[in-house]
């Protein structure tokens, strides 16, 4: 498997089919928020429930895509992507908390009897600075962690467990009330974003559209990267790092770039996730959340870019459905699904679709 699967899939099925399918999906996603703006009685009205549910899944899909970039293409299995996602979410949450607190302190702080903002909260009332934080915090953390990890040539399972330790430490840190991020309750009860009410249909629709745009943009970026020379070097790196080094490449820069990019994408997804679901708290950093993200990717089909999106959609869709339909037995269904997919669909769901195509 020297070439990413989608490329071969696309070549075989012809670019037309792929583009048509993607275009169709995009059209549906763009139409949804617009239909949400229709009055509730209208037959085609999309409810707030559906919109936020799909919006949430789209955010997860971006995480899956970002994880696929590092795992599928560079062979780095991160079990800590939940940390970057949550950090982006927290940065956005800080802004939203400041918005709802007005001139005062966020509610949980006055409750801790803090009289002034800690230094890391400065400037978070400005949307622009919050957006900078969304990109910078996960980006810088990933850069520093990656810089040292790749310099020491930490690979494979060692890398995975290190990222897991990182997100676990982050979770414990954010659990503390004293850290200044609302403890395990995290941030909730957001009111407005840029002055618009957060529960207004128009705001919801805009946020949803932004998520769709980010997803489409990331997908496009992913495709471009995968087709470029950079993407080929990454794949080579994944399959035979030593041989690549003997050819005179230094893998560190490649790894570091894709790793940081992936973390930033996660951060952005987190930032869009928070206003849509209305809560951010440390459980997003729980190691199991990150493992689940890896499960989405594996389920959909690793190193295919499209596959992880399907995987995230499928798993979360099923979760939403099973938890209502079979509240006590849904874990059996989900567990069985994971086993069946690994045993019979080694290339994930996308592999199945591809086989059908042939």
């Amino acid at each position: 498997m020297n070439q990413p699967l989608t490329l071969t899939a696309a070549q075989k099925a012809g670019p037309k089919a792929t583009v048509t399918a993607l275009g169709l999906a995009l059209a549906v996603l763009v139409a949804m928020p617009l239909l949400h703006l229709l009055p509730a009685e209208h037959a085609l009205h999309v409810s707030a429930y559906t919109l936020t549910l799909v919006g949430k899944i789209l955010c997860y899909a971006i995480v899956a895509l970002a994880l696929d970039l590092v795992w599928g293409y560079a062979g780095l299995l991160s079990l800590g992507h939940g940390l970057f996602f949550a950090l982006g979410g927290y940065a956005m949450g800080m802004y939203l908390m400041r918005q709802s607190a007005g001139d005062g302190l966020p509610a949980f702080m006055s409750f801790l009897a803090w009289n002034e903002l800690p230094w890391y909260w400065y400037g978070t009332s400005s949307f622009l600075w919050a957006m900078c934080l969304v990109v910078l915090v996960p980006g810088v953390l990933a850069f520093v962690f990656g810089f040292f990890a790749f310099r020491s040539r930490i690979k494979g399972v060692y890398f995975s467990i290190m990222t897991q330790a990182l997100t676990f430490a982050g979770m414990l840190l954010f659990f503390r009330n004293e850290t200044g991020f609302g403890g395990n309750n995290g941030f909730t009860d957001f009111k407005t974003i840029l002055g618009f009410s957060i529960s207004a249909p128009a705001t919801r629709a805009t946020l949803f559209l932004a998520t769709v745009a980010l997803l489409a943009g990331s997908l496009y970026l992913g495709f471009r990267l995968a087709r470029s020379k950079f993407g080929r070097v990454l794949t080579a790196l994944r399959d035979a790092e030593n041989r690549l080094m003997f050819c005179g490449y230094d893998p560190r820069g490649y790894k570091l770039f894709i790793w940081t990019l992936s973390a930033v994408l996660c951060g952005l997804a987190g930032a869009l996730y928070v206003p849509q679901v209305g809560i951010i708290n440390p459980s997003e950093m729980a190691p199991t959340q990150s493992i689940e993200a890896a499960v989405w990717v594996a389920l959909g089909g690793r190193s295919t870019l499209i596959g992880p999106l399907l995987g995230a959609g499928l798993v979360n869709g099923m979760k939403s459905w099973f938890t209502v339909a079979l509240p006590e037995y849904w874990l059996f269904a989900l567990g069985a699904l994971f086993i069946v997919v690994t045993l019979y669909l080694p290339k994930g769901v996308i592999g199945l679709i591809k086989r059908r195509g042939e």
Partner: protein
Amino acid sequence: MNTALHRLLLLLLLVLPWAAQAGDAADYAKASPAKQARLLESWAAAPAPERLPLIEALRANRVAIDQNKTPFIEENGAYRALEGDAEPVGTPKKLRLNNRLRGLLNTALASHQLFAEDPAQRLAAAKRLQRSGQPEQLELLQQRLDAEDDAAVSEALTLALANLQLTASDPAVRLAAVRLLGETGAPMARVRLENLLADEAETDANVRKAAETSLAQAKRKLLIGELLGQAFSGLSLGSILLLAALGLAITFGLLGVINMAHGEMLMLGAYTTYMVQVLMARLAPEALAFYPLVALPVAFFVTAAIGMALERTVIRHLYGRPLETLLATWGISLILIQLVRVLFGAQNVEVANPGWLSGGLQVLPNLVLPYNRMVIIGFALFVVLLTWLLLNKTRLGLNVRAVTQNRNMAACCGVPTGRIDMMAFGLGSGIAGLGGVALSQIGNVGPDLGQSYIIDSFLVVVLGGVGQLAGSIFAAFGLGIANKILEPQIGAVLGKILILALIILFIQKRPQGLFALKGRVID
């Protein structure tokens, strides 16, 4: 009802309160809690041998009163009057105890036991009074000390007395008491000496000076106890981490399966212990105390069998695709957790420490080593030895090592790799089951038990170096001890965060863990 009987009852009702008033039991039964406390205090200061059965019955919470507040003692469901030979009117109700009364009862009981025949009982009583002696008991203690002929009891009594003599009017007595306290190393002695020195409570210069020396001495002794305690708790935590991780060191370390269901094997081991306990309580209650020993082989075989079944049906198909084992074993783990939840309920189940695993050994006045932890440390070393023997001294072990080092070569030499994989996975799961038995003795047994150990287990194996048993042992004890050194300094939460950060830094230095596989293989 017969009128004659009626009359008799009426008469009894009238007479009973009078008949009972004479005794301590009746006084106690009628008193309010505050009065009961005062009664107990007076009994502690002036013990009377005939009162001992009453105090013992009260302490064991076996005293009940009927409608007339006549006290009875409950024995195997029957009631016997404590004083006189009255029959209970109505169903007697147990007298209520609270912690204050329990404490006073302990002191009163100790006072009475100072008169016991058995020196061991007197010694225990004297030791109890070292902690809870009251100023009113000063005279009693002095008197018992003069009458005591056993050396050990005398020593204990002298010390109990010394605690009370710090306020004596004679400076010489105070001086002797202060000196004695310095030698004990009991946490109470330190506080008493500090109180003596604070606020100029002690006026005599000589006594002050002696108190200062004694205080320093007591502090030194306490420090030794504290340090030993920290070392022990580090070892204990290390042994628990090791037991939790050892199975994973085989399934993940040797076989390369990213076994997310490892935690559930621990959980199943613990639930097997629970089942064994329940079955033995029903079938062989006389041997119940040894249920953990019975549970060991049972848990080993149950989890090994489940492990082998999983290997045959699922994991076998995934060799050579290590990262996908993550996905499948994650699914298995979800199913096992929910299965246990449906079968046993979401709540924890009760796994009790048997008598020989409860309580602890008092080594120093401020150091108790719990038996269950000591046994677990020994057990961890035993399991390590067992694993080492299995892997290095048996044919199976040879084959396992051959297969894990070079599967194709081993297959060429006629090693049945499929069977070996199954056996090795079974062994790893079985050892996890053994770990589960040990964990059930210190923590809770619930469906989520495995989830709380899985991350630590992976950290131990990875830190030690994948595929290196010795590495896992070093990593487990290293993490345990580091954790226990950090915890008293910065608290449990920050300690844990710092440990994680240190692991990340450490791996930068040694990217293959503590014990890296040496070799020239390169892909």
